[in-house]
Every structure is written in structure tokens, then in C-alpha cells.
């Protein structure tokens, strides 16, 4: 059970341990090895170093873009472990800032929707504006050109003359539907020059905010501010951000003839093909959803081995539209770097304080003398 040496002279783990380290096994009833081994000295008895250094990672890490659309990106992240991938995912969901409507002043609302519901609906509308151009609005601060955006929504529903009664409401009435496109931007200060040709507006023009009937009106003013989704989900920059680990489908025995056809038909994700020789092959393991249908019946579990690669992530980011998805990933990493810098700063501060306290306590005798002298007691 000795460990071997790989090509660059580094010691490597025996096969079964390497398998345990790098795979999550998916059995028909339970997954196993689901928890990674992260302790740096875990394999020290075998002379294998399990520590992580940034320079090692630089050599090992691979990123490959699989799909890229306007609001969506899918890429592979290979060579990092789940805690890091998960931290990035969590930051994407809740700590990358965006702009969202926060305050609504109603001047008139005779629609059937209550003010608080309407305000909530407005809050959830994604706004197409770069939050990096803004500061956070401090508690109690006045809205200004650097921390807020103002929009006005003023609609009245009226009858259109000479339309038959059985026609659709959208033909019979003006403004029977209130859409996000009706929010009108009102620049504060010099915002008109700053934004120039790209005025802030909702990402989607066709979000239905309310429905009106003749005689009803909505007149309101809103303030959009910068925030993060830890405070409220309306500030989340993503529709969703998730990853899955790369699925692996291995055929342990040769599967031929009727078995091969059974296997191909069994898989709902169409992972298998049958070669000309009649042998089944797992040609599209990436499509496997780990439904485990292929190992559930009879003795199939002895023929097929399902697993996931522990350090290979297929990461998907879907943006709400305000920030491009590839930008979102970069911003999430920047947030992580900033958080780290912030923690290090706080650590140094508190270490300075505690060492000063330690010094102070050794000088206590002197100090108490001095205070006694200066207060005359």
C-alpha cells in the first residue's frame, strides 16, 4: 500500500486514497466521501503534503468559459475546493452592490393596489445603472447626485372614444397597464451630464407594475439607492448563481448487446451511446444529473460507478441585467479581496491595542504612581 512518486518527483497518494481525496462517490442509496479532507497534514504519514499555497494554486487553477450570453455565463472552475467556490457564490448572491428603489413618496394612488404592495413591486425592478458610480447613502443623509437616483411615475387611465365594449382593455383604455418603462428619470444635480447618452432606466421595459381602469391614477416619486442583498433581496445582482461538481460516469464492466440498449434507454439525460461493436460508452457524462436511475435496479451498481470530481465546478451566473455576468464574477472577487483587507486591518489594529495593553499593564505600578501624584491623592 506504499505511495508512489509522480513525474516531477513529488510523492503521490496510493490509488484508493487519491480517489477518496478527489471524488465524491454517488451510491444508489447514499453518497459517500462527501466531506473533503482539508487538513494540511492529513497525509503526512505518507510523505504527501496536503497544504495549499497561492503559488501552487496559480499553476493548478484552470478556468474555461463554456457559454457566454448577455445576461448569462457558464464556466468551469478547476482546481479549487468547495469552500472557496461557495464563498464566491455567496458573495454573488448577497454582497455585490446594485441600485434599487428604496423610498417611494405617493402623491396619488387610486389603483386597486395598496401603497405598500406597490412600493414593494417597485423595489424589485432591476435598474440598468452601474452602482460603482454611486456611494452608499448614509443613515439620515439627504439624497444627492452621488447617492441616489430619482424617478417619477405619473399615469392616469382614460377611456378611448368609440371602441366597442367587448374589445380588450388595452384597446378600450389609455394606460390600462402600468409598465416599468413609464418610470421617468429625473436627474439630480449634474447627473444629466454624467449619464449623458445612457440614462438610468429599468433593465426591462415590460414589467407590469399595476393595472388601472378609467378614473384611476398613480402619481409617485421614487428614490433608488445603492445597497447589498444582505439587507434586502431586491439588491441582489443575480437572478441566480450556482455551481455543480463535474459528474463522472464510469463503466466498470463491458456492457454489450441487450444490456447496452437497456442502459441507453434507462438514462433520461441521454449520457450513453452504443458503439458499432454493440458496446455501451458514457459519451456525455457532463449531462448526467445524478438521478441514479442507471444504478437502481438489479446488479447495475456493480457495473456503473457514479461520482463527482471534488475540485471541478461548473459555475453558472445569471445576471438581472444591470451588470454583465462576467463583470459580476470579477466584482465578487473584488468584494472578497476587500473583505480580507478589512479583516487584516482590524486584526492589526486589535493586536496593536492588545500589545499596548500588555505594555500598559507592566507599567501599571508607574502609572498608578503618576495618577496619584497628578490628582494629589
Amino acid at each position, binding site marked *: 500500500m506504499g505511495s508512489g512518486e509522480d513525474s516531477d518527483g513529488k510523492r503521490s497518494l496510493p490509488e484508493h486514497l487519491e480517489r477518496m481525496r478527489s471524488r465524491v462517490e454517488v451510491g444508489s442509496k447514499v453518497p459517500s466521501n462527501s466531506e473533503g479532507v482539508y487538513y494540511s497534514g492529513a497525509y503526512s504519514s505518507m510523505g504527501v503534503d496536503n497544504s*495549499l499555497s497561492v503559488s501552487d494554486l496559480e499553476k493548478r487553477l484552470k*478556468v474555461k468559459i463554456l457559454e457566454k450570453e448577455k445576461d448569462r455565463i457558464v464556466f468551469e472552475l478547476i482546481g479549487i475546493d468547495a469552500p*472557496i467556490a461557495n464563498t464566491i457564490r455567496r458573495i454573488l448572491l448577497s*454582497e455585490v452592490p446594485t441600485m434599487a428603489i428604496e423610498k417611494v413618496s405617493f402623491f396619488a394612488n387610486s389603483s386597486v393596489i395598496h401603497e405598500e404592495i406597490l412600493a414593494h413591486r417597485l423595489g424589485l425592478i432591476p435598474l440598468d445603472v452601474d452602482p460603482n458610480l454611486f456611494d452608499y447613502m448614509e443613515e439620515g443623509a439627504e439624497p444627492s447626485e452621488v447617492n441616489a437616483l430619482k424617478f417619477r411615475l405619473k399615469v392616469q387611465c382614460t377611456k378611448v372614444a368609440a371602441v366597442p365594449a367587448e374589445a380588450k382593455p388595452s384597446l378600450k383604455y389609455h394606460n390600462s397597464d402600468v409598465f416599468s418603462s413609464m418610470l421617468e428619470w429625473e436627474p439630480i444635480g449634474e447627473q444629466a451630464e454624467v449619464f449623458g447618452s445612457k440614462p438610468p432606466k429599468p433593465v426591462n421595459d415590460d414589467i407590469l407594475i399595476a393595472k388601472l381602469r378609467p378614473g384611476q391614477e398613480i402619481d409617485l416619486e421614487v428614490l433608488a439607492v445603492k445597497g447589498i442583498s444582505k439587507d434586502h433581496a431586491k439588491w441582489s445582482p443575480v437572478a441566480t448563481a450556482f455551481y455543480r461538481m463535474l459528474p463522472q460516469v464510469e463503466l466498470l464492466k463491458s456492457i454489450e448487446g441487450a444490456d447496452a440498449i437497456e442502459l441507453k434507454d434507462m438514462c433520461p439525460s441521454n449520457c450513453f451511446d452504443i458503439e458499432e461493436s454493440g458496446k455501451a460508452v458514457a459519451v456525455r457524462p457532463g449531462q448526467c444529473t445524478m438521478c441514479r436511475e442507471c444504478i437502481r435496479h438489479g446488479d447495475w451498481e456493480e457495473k456503473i460507478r457514479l461520482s463527482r470530481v471534488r475540485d471541478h465546478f461548473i459555475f453558472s451566473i445569471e445576471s438581472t441585467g444591470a451588470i454583465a455576468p462576467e463583470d459580476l464574477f*470579477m466584482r465578487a472577487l473584488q468584494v472578497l*479581496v476587500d473583505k480580507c483587507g478589512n479583516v487584516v486591518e*482590524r486584526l492589526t*489594529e*486589535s493586536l496593536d491595542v*492588545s500589545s499596548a495593553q500588555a505594555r500598559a499593564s507592566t507599567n501599571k505600578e508607574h502609572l498608578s504612581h503618576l495618577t496619584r501624584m497628578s490628582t494629589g491623592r
Partner: protein
Amino acid sequence: MANSGGEDLCLEVAGDDPSCATIVLRGEDHTMGNAVRYMLARRPGVEFAGYSIPHPSEDRLNIRVQTIAGGESAAEAFGGSVKDLAGVADVIAKSFLGALEEFSTSMKQ
């Protein structure tokens, strides 16, 4: 809102053994907790690393670090790991930008 001020990090060291410490962070949650714990666990010289959020309604993240006696102190290991975490983010950012470039050239062809 985004970051809270005040006394937001403190170091609890029981006795005078610098190789064991509990770092108490405020304004952070599992996002930092788990990542830092992971970086600590994979740092040579760290014997134990763990984190907990004792109660969800209390803004408190405990990170426990124990290092091998005679080596790096727990506070140093913690600081080093947090810096390494920023380094990891940097490496990922670099690879990601490279991959984006590669993708756009391959799309042009």
C-alpha cells in the same frame, strides 16, 4: 449597512499561550467563516481550525485557531490565511480574465 464600525474584531487568548486563539469577528458570516477556516486548515503549522456562529441573531463569528507550539502564533496564522485568501481570489481573477480573452478570440475565429 455594508460594514459595521466600532469594536468589530477581538482576539481572545486564554492564558499566555500564543499558539491558541479565538478570533471574534463582527459583521461577517459563513461567507468569510468557512473560507478562512478552509485556508487555515490547509496552512502548514496549523493544528486545528474551526468556526462557529453561536447564535444567528447575535452578530458574532468565532474562528478558533491552534498552531503547533513553537511555530507561528495563532494570530499570525490567521492573518496569513486571510491574506492568502485574498491571494486565491486574485489568482482566480487572473485565470478568469485569461479565459475570457481566450473565449472571445475563439468566438471570432
